[in-house]
């Protein structure tokens, strides 16, 4: 279960972002909708434990972010949260398989190239296993980035505008994959977006 209560964030006294409380059970999905500057990304970063909390509280499956040190938060993120960004941002010095395995390395689970290969198989990228990142199309790269986020079977998947730079076919493929993986792992899925294609698929909406 993911819950936020009385969450607010203040940028140097200038902008004050206040978030309505919400609560999501496992396997629930929600889109976060808001214009630019409305605090979508800030909310996502707070939920991902990538920014220090100022006021309010976030809890994921009984763990309160407030009580975690920086290092503990890193560990918690590695094991329980998967992040997807607008652009794939895969690591160019590593090949496709290694990009998946590096995510396993940071979590406390075992590294398994078999599991990484199996996931690649499900998105029809098996033949790209040892390919360089530069050889992938943008859609393929985004699918790999998505696999990277879910390979450790996270409780929470956070996706920041994952489809905005993709064409219709790829956008739908990525959405399918996100939903499919969230269902498979019983994860909570949160997507920030202003993309109509996403809103059509997920009815639960949180407006900023």
């Amino acid at each position, binding site marked *: 279960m993911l819950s936020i209560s009385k969450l607010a964030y203040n940028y140097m006294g200038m902008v004050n972002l206040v978030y309505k409380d919400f609560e999501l059970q496992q396997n629930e999905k929600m889109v976060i909708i808001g214009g630019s500057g409305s605090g979508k990304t800030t909310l996502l970063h707070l939920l991902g434990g990538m*920014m220090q909390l100022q006021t309010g509280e976030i809890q994921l499956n009984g763990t309160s972010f407030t009580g975690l040190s920086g290092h503990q938060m890193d560990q918690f993120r590695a094991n329980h949260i998967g992040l997807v960004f607008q652009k794939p941002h895969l690591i160019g*010095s590593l090949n496709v398989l290694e990009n998946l395995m*590096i995510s396993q390395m940071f979590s406390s689970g075992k590294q398994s190239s078999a599991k990484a290969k199996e996931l690649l198989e499900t998105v029809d990228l098996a033949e790209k296993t040892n390919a360089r990142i530069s050889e992938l199309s943008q859609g393929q790269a985004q699918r790999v980035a998505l696999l990277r986020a879910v390979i450790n079977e996270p409780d929470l998947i956070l996706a920041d505008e994952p489809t905005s730079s993709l064409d219709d076919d790829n956008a739908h493929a990525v959405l399918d994959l996100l939903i499919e993986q969230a269902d498979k792992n019983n994860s909570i899925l949160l997507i920030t977006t202003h993309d109509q294609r996403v809103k059509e698929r997920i009815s639960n909406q949180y407006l900023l």
Partner: protein
Amino acid sequence: MNLAKLSWKYIADRPLNTFLNVLLFGFGISIILVLLLLSDQMKDTLTKNSKGISLVAAAKGSPLQIILCNIFHIDFPTGNIALKEAIELSKNRLVKNAIPIALGDSYKNHRIVGTTKAYIDLYEAQLIEGEMWAESNEAVIGFNVAQSLEIKLNDGFYTEHGLQSGGAAHEDHEVKVVGVLERSGTVLDNLILTSVETVWEAHESHGEEGDHHHTEEEMITELGIRFAEHDLDEKEITSLIIQYSGPMAAVRLPRMINSQTNMQSASPAFETARLFSLIGVGVEVVNGFAYLIIFIAALSIFIALYNSLKQRAYDLAIMRAMGASRRFLFLHVIVESLIVSVLGGIFGLLIAHASIGAIDRFFIPQESQMYVSAFVFLNDELIVIGVSFVVGIIASIIPAISAYRTDLSKTLAKG
């Protein structure tokens, strides 16, 4: 996947730059090592050759020249000393042992040294073939002489006048090889050893013809040399190698020789130390140069890392998003630099030993007294690995700190 492998992937991603840095670092290290190895092996050769020799008494002249000539057999003699005076000196109570040295002839660039068996014993050298000389015109040759001139036991040769090849041959005096010495790693390897009498005879024969018919009762033996008593005042040798009888001798004997005789004393320990202090300046300069190269290499590693980290800010942020700790990123950058510097260190170690091998093979002439080997390893070389580590860490500390400080949220928001 692990930390080292991840760092390696980034290094492998810029092969030319890595190659340059490894090369640069390796060269700096190798210069320092070559100097270290050469001076160590040189010192080793010097001490081996002057072991057990307290003092050399020779004709008045430069003490350094006396040592170079009579111990290392490189320089020319300062002149001759009277046999009579040498005998008197050898009977001084401050002298424990005295060995005569008579130079003057050579054979194909190998010096012929007239001496006694005591000279061979000084270096604890053993014969591998044949036996010691017993009669005049018999010689024992060093290991390298046998190898390079391809002379065998019982071969005869004509000695040449002078210490370098090209002198007139003493054609009426054939010298027979009666023994070959084992390789001792000392000057003996390159020398032809014979009795003092043999050296004398080669010279007498073309000087005062026919004046060596002595009757048996006139013969005496002093310093291990057998000669006619009435020749005592005329005979000369090149030098006398002396072992002190005790610590008092070190204080009194050199002064006594210099002031009360026509001879000059020279201490091998003192002269080799002086020689090293002269060479030392040059070694220091080259060493300084090597440290400069290492500094430049460190700077180059630093710049490479710094530039690559600017492009990698997003990679680092992504790793943090995946749950990498700040400490991990810090170590990731340090390890990347360490791999380059340690590779450089190992590369330097290899070049250094290969260079020593090349120096031994191509630059040191056979007849010289230097012995160097590519396969001598010193404990000091371990320090090089340590230096590589330290340089690697210093070069990467600033980039590593900036990686440590990567602001996850800000970097990702920019993307």
